[in-house]
């Protein structure tokens, strides 16, 4: 790839810490992180009591499972997913760089978070893909 191609890439979306910080402004989101497919933590802002490394290792494993097979054993891209308990939810989005994970309290609304997450995924795709 030429240097010119790098320069013309949109800068917005390349700094994943900034992307994450924007998503953390969504209502009822209490933390989040970005993890590479090999489990390496890229960016994180988590509640103090949450240990980042085990969480990111599991998120990467979950992201790979979803990418590889999904719940119906079909290989395909998954844009977003929500995993909910009575105490809150984890929201996952897939990008070429890795997975964006947001943690929400029980009031975090799936449609709102999905909309925000999809916007962020698009920004990251445009900045990183290719």
């Amino acid at each position, binding site marked *: 790839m030429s240097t010119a191609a790098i320069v013309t890439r949109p800068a917005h979306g390349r700094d994943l810490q900034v992307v994450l910080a924007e998503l953390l402004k969504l209502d009822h989101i209490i933390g989040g992180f970005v993890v590479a497919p*090999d489990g390496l933590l890229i960016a994180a802002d988590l509640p103090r009591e949450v240990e980042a490394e085990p969480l990111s290792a599991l998120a990467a494993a979950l992201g790979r499972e979803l990418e590889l097979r999904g719940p119906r054993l079909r290989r395909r891209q998954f844009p977003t997913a929500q*995993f909910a308990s009575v105490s809150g939810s984890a929201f996952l989005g897939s990008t070429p760089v890795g997975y964006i994970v947001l943690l929400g309290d029980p009031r975090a609304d799936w449609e709102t978070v999905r909309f925000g997450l999809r916007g962020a995924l698009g920004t990251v795709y445009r900045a990183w893909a290719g």
Partner: protein
Amino acid sequence: MLFAKIWHWVRGDKRPPTSALALRQARRLRDEGRYQRAAGVVDKALLRDPRNVAGHLLAASLHMALRETRSARASFERVLALEPTHPRALLGLARIELEDGETAACCALLSRALARYPDLPEARAVLEVARGLLAPAHAKRYATPNVAVEADRLGLPAESREALFARADATKIVAVPHEPGADAVAAQAVKLSKVAAAMLGRAGLGPLRHAVIESAAETTYLRLDDTALLTLSFDRDMKSATALRHLERVWHRFRSEFA
């Protein structure tokens, strides 16, 4: 000696970069998202310096970023041939074994890592999931119909494309439409739910209750407890609130129907 030094100086940048320089360049390319080029630089460096552990680890990381699992496995194996208890290589290879359904091999690698480095929380977290997949689930007994059940009898929503109800140990109870691969689908859904449950637990959010998974063509809704699991798939256009209401209704119906 002096002549040799002058000769090297004259050759200047035609000399191949040292491994350290090449790996630094590769890391910079990786950080720019240029994974293919970074992998090419690492491959060249490793041709010159095939015992470079950092190089093989970087190659593995790049292959994972490119979703080239087979190549990543080979790189992790090369690291372990050089350093048999390298924690990142053991963890990386263990995760690939988990992906491939080789759960016992995954457990063995993680146990090896933890025996050498007991304070490796990410290895402990993945090991808990892997052991959970190996252990038989203490699932409540549900009746398994001997014949394909008619969809009408189950009260499935008309909009639903597929439904699967399985025990927590991944034994299929009913699948609509009835397909030969339904047992594998049940096993995959259970595996997915166990990894997700472990992640929620680590995040301090408690047991997994339901999931919504989007894909290009459809959205799959999953409901579970510690005895059983239900998946329902709908077109992507379906409103999630409506789909979740269907999910809850079918979940209660199936649990009473097959208990």
